[in-house]
């Protein structure tokens, strides 16, 4: 059961330095939204504000509202740990837990974060690994260490780990940038399947990937060097890549800068 996200007036700081300013957008349930933009414009920072990971960094601070199905994630009395159970995240570099086996990695979210029934654990792990398209490759070695897999397999393991806890939204921060083209293709196909069940937001440096994978695309940019990042335009992917409304978007898409 995926949820929609409404962001209004979001500003994020690192200490006193303003990283992104006044971002407002809507992400529809069961869709894939891609964030594109040049390096350093705040895409990853904005992504991390969506699941309250920004405040984990020293000096991280957020103003504004993020509504998950009409509930403000930054509201009074909201527990960030519960927020992160509903909004999962996959990072740029695969990071399976090195001391755990493949089975334990996928089960880690359930065992440590939620309540679970021991009898259901096997089923949940199998379902998540199948959902991440990894089951056939690892079903005979579930007890082997998670770090013994290749890069693409490790990233799919991290995706399986993230979806095992059944989040409402899945955030992906450049999930393919550390992978070879074949693994990238596997993960992009996976995103196409996952969007039936989850709302997905993906940050990517690769514009062609955004065009392949997403339903809607948001373009971020800095107003000038040293200025905070802003949301320039958000629209259906086809429109952004064929006929964007803002000149800066057109310039970035056609490669005049970035």
């Amino acid at each position, binding site marked *: 059961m995926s949820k929609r996200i409404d962001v209004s007036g979001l500003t994020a700081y690192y200490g006193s330095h303003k990283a992104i300013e006044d971002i407002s957008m809507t992400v529809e349930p069961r869709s894939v939204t891609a964030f594109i933009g040049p390096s350093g414009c705040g895409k990853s920072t904005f992504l991390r504000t969506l*699941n309250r*990971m920004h405040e*984990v960094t*020293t000096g991280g601070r957020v103003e504004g509202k993020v509504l998950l199905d009409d509930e403000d994630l930054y509201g009074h009395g909201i527990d960030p*740990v*519960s*927020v*992160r*159970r*509903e909004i*999962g*995240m996959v*990072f740029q*570099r695969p*990071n399976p*837990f*090195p*001391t755990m086996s493949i089975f334990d990695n996928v089960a*880690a*979210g359930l065992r*440590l*974060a*939620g309540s679970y029934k021991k009898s259901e654990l096997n089923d949940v792990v199998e379902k998540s690994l199948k959902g991440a398209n990894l089951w056939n490759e690892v079903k005979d*070695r579930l007890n*082997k*260490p998670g*770090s*013994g*897999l290749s890069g693409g397999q490790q990233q799919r393991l*991290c995706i399986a*780990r*993230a979806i095992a*806890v059944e989040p409402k939204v899945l955030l992906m921060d450049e999930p393919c940038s550390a992978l070879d083209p074949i693994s990238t293709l596997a993960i992009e196909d996976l995103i196409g399947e996952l969007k039936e069940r989850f709302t997905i937001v993906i940050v990517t440096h690769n514009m062609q990937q955004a065009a392949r994978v997403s339903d809607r695309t948001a373009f971020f940019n800095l107003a000038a060097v040293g200025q905070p990042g802003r949301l320039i335009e958000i629209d259906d992917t086809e429109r952004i890549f064929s006929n964007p409304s803002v000149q800066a978007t057109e310039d970035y898409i056609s490669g005049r800068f970035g």
Partner: protein
Amino acid sequence: MSNAVAAEKPASTLQGATLPNWSPYAIAGGSIVMAVLIGLVGSLDSKIQWGLIAAILFVVGTYVIAARVEGSRQAKDRIATSLVWVAFLLAVVPLVSLLWTTISRGVKVLDVYFLSHSMGVVGDTEPGGGIYHAIIGSLEQVGLATLIGAPIGVLTAIYLVEYGSGALSKSVTFFVDVMTGIPSIVAGLFILSLMLMWDLGPSGFAGSCALAILMMPVVVRSTEEMLKLVPNELREASLALGIPKWRTILKVVLPTAIGGITTGIMLSVARIAGETAPVLLLVFGNPFINNDPFSGAQASLPLYIYQQFAQSAGSGAAYDRAWAASLTLIAFVMILNLVARGIARWKAPKTGR
């Protein structure tokens, strides 16, 4: 092109002369021979002086010969290599000599009887007796000290790395650094003053407290380093799953660092196993077996060695026992180190397929 010039090939700018592979050994041999000659002629008695002269001749000889044949850059390279070798030998020779002396003198009285009997029925100057009471004492005191010091040290390090960012953590770091340098006798005096305040007699437990004070800063420092080595992305991955911070530390960060933490604890245990000063003040020593660390004086291996040496009035039997006890202590520390390495390897994040 003139044919007359064709016979002369221009000198290669890439190739240079090199000394043969056996030259370092030849130079070493030559310098040793010259040092021996100088020693004999100059009637220098100490073999150490001969060794130092040989080392200096080796370094100087290498430089001069290499500079002549190969060039000054290669000569400097050889100098660096030879300095490293000389330093290595200077470090290893005393260690080997120590081990050799301890083993050769220690095995004289070391046998099963020695390890299983105490000094209860034997006077300090007579032969016979054993170190069983000292082994029990050492094991109990070091064990209790570890039970006290290791958890406090690890928890402090977790606070400093995972939670602390303000004035409290800065002052804790400062005081831990100060504690690293506390002389062991000062730690002993501190506990002694407490014992006198509360009218307590000597006990193994008091010694354990002083040893725990000595052990804590080492454990904090090494655990801190190990925790900092855990990559931050692991913590983020765990937090992003909705795992609360304390569980992240307990189930993800600590297991990843546990190998290094165990090594740090074992090394600090090895250090306190040989502390004599606080034990002297607080545990007093006891020729009889005392299995209870909470009441009454106990013996301990380093204290036993000191007492055998100091109170033996030059008796050969006492010296032999002291050497055997030293050998036991060294073996004890070595076994601890090997166990630490074994645990570190067993618990290291595995990379097998």
